[in-house]
């Protein structure tokens, strides 16, 4: 199971990096969304991967039975999902607002904060 997921994580990273290298903000956002999922899967693979054994201590025992998955990475993923989801929502709104205000979604034309024709400081007075 782990090798399969490792390959999937690799594919996700490749796709995310490819999209994030784009000039268009909406593609960058898609890349970030995929990157977040890639990292979540990575965390998930970091815990043990087993099928069908819930990490619940049965009555009468005091530790988990053998072969259960580690529940902690799943708690970490839950936190990371909430955070990356809210950030993605914020970024999408920001991107849309930037598209409205700047009239472009091409990052090479987004130069409101750093105009191309900024003068050099004076050399003397």
């Amino acid at each position: 199971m782990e090798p399969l997921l490792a390959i999937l994580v690799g594919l996700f990273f490749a796709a995310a990096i490819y999209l994030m290298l784009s000039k268009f903000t909406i593609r960058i956002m898609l890349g970030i969304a995929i990157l977040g999922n890639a990292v979540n899967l990575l965390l998930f693979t970091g815990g043990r991967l087993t099928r069908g054994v819930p990490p619940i201590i049965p009555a009468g025992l005091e530790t988990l039975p053998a072969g259960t998955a580690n529940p902690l990475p799943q708690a970490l993923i839950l936190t990371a999902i909430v955070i990356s989801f809210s950030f993605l929502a914020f970024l999408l709104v920001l991107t849309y607002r930037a598209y409205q205000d700047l009239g472009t979604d091409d990052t090479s034309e987004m130069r409101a904060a750093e105009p191309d024709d900024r003068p050099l400081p004076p050399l003397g007075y």
Partner: protein
Amino acid sequence: MAAPTTIDLAAALITAPVPIGHWLAILPVAHCITLGAVLLMLRNHPRLQAWLAISGLAALALIDAALLAKVSAEGPLTMVMGRWLPPFGIAFTVDLLGALMAFTAALVALAAGIYALADIGESGRRYGFFPLLMLLMAGVTGAFLTGDVFNLYVWFEVLLISSFGLIILGSERQQIDGALKYAVLNLIATTLFLIGVGILYAAFGTLNMADIAARAKDLRGTAPLMTLASLFLLAFGMKAAAFPVNFWLPAAYHTPRIVVSALFAGLLTKVGIYALIRVMVMLLPVERQELSLVIALAAAATIVVGALGALAENDIRRLFGYVVISGIGNMLAGVALGGPSGGPSGDIDGVSGAVFYALHSMVLMTALYLAAGEIARRGGGLLLSELGGLYRQSGAFAALSLVLFLAACGLPPFSGFWPKVILVKAALDLGDWWLAAAILVGGFLTTIAFGRLFLLAYWRPASVELMPFEARWRAGLPLAALTALTIGFGILPEQLLALSRSAAAGLADPAAYLHSVFPGGAR
């Protein structure tokens, strides 16, 4: 698996009540979050909100001062959440480094809060400047005080989301543009950090910093620790704006309100440096040693690129942005040089130089941006090509600015001098003459940049007659207080020098830190 039939739960649970003093470890963060929520509810009462926020920030500074006093007297302090003892429970572990950074951050935030009375109008307050400021402080303080790597990630995100809110306050076109670049690059940096955390957990099976520090030597050779160290270096380097990944900073830091720029320049990059010091120096010291050439090269490049960028800028706030970057390079140089050098002056080392520089830089960069706000108000702009006549308008303000400029260049007798002395000395002791040269050349180029700034904006006659300017205490008081701190650290550095030395010693030999987390000895 033969599961034991009974387990001694007392070994994993807190059974004794927490001593009152230990609540100090969590109090700053709880205070900030609670106050942030209360301020949010008061958004229809801008005046009341502002005064409550400022008294809350003053209280935060007092709490952090008490924490610092306790930690410097009694050694590291640990408080554990949810009754589970480490490594199961999430621990807040405060050592001298964390307490020092948190206290300085609180002072800076207090100054910025007072300045905000003059800088943030009613609409900015309604859009939540003060609640966001408190949540930003919760994130910053939490990152300084936590003893758990995943928790560090969470505090990074808390401060990041509040900084997003602060940077777009005002919704101007260039703010949206700057915020987009800031947000995307910082989000990628924290995601890289999260990748590191995932691999770290897979390798160590624990996220508690003390546990990791204790176990790293057993896992060396079997776990991919170099990969981890490189990932953390890249992620925190990006957060701190180190050389190849620094260009988001000058693209974004000049767009928000002055006081927001000041907060960001003072606090956010230093959180990155703090995390870098914590992870590289305390958790993975051997990997830091192996990567030290890479870090040193990045540091030298950051110093020189930052200083050259400052030379080429016409906009004062962007110029200061490059000065922030150059300062980050100096702190990175400290991380590259590492612990006690073993040279003739045994106790002078790079890490204590980096800690001193970080504390100095938090105060100074905030003060510089607040001064930029005053320059804009007095001179009517921030462009070097248009400013002039500020000296004639107010000699006192010119003198105050000159103090800040000289401190930023690292000239005596101001606070920037001492950390540079330590760093150059440590670099020479280790034989890294080129790193020492980079620090000195960076300081020289910064001096030229600031000299020209003073010449053009202050000494040059104004093109239009400047109106006499009425100084306001809300802006003048925080600026004067931060400048006084800069002068104080420059003239009487012994106390801070001793503190940053023992903070660095605590990182090089984290026995006290480990003992505080595992009083019964590490597992």
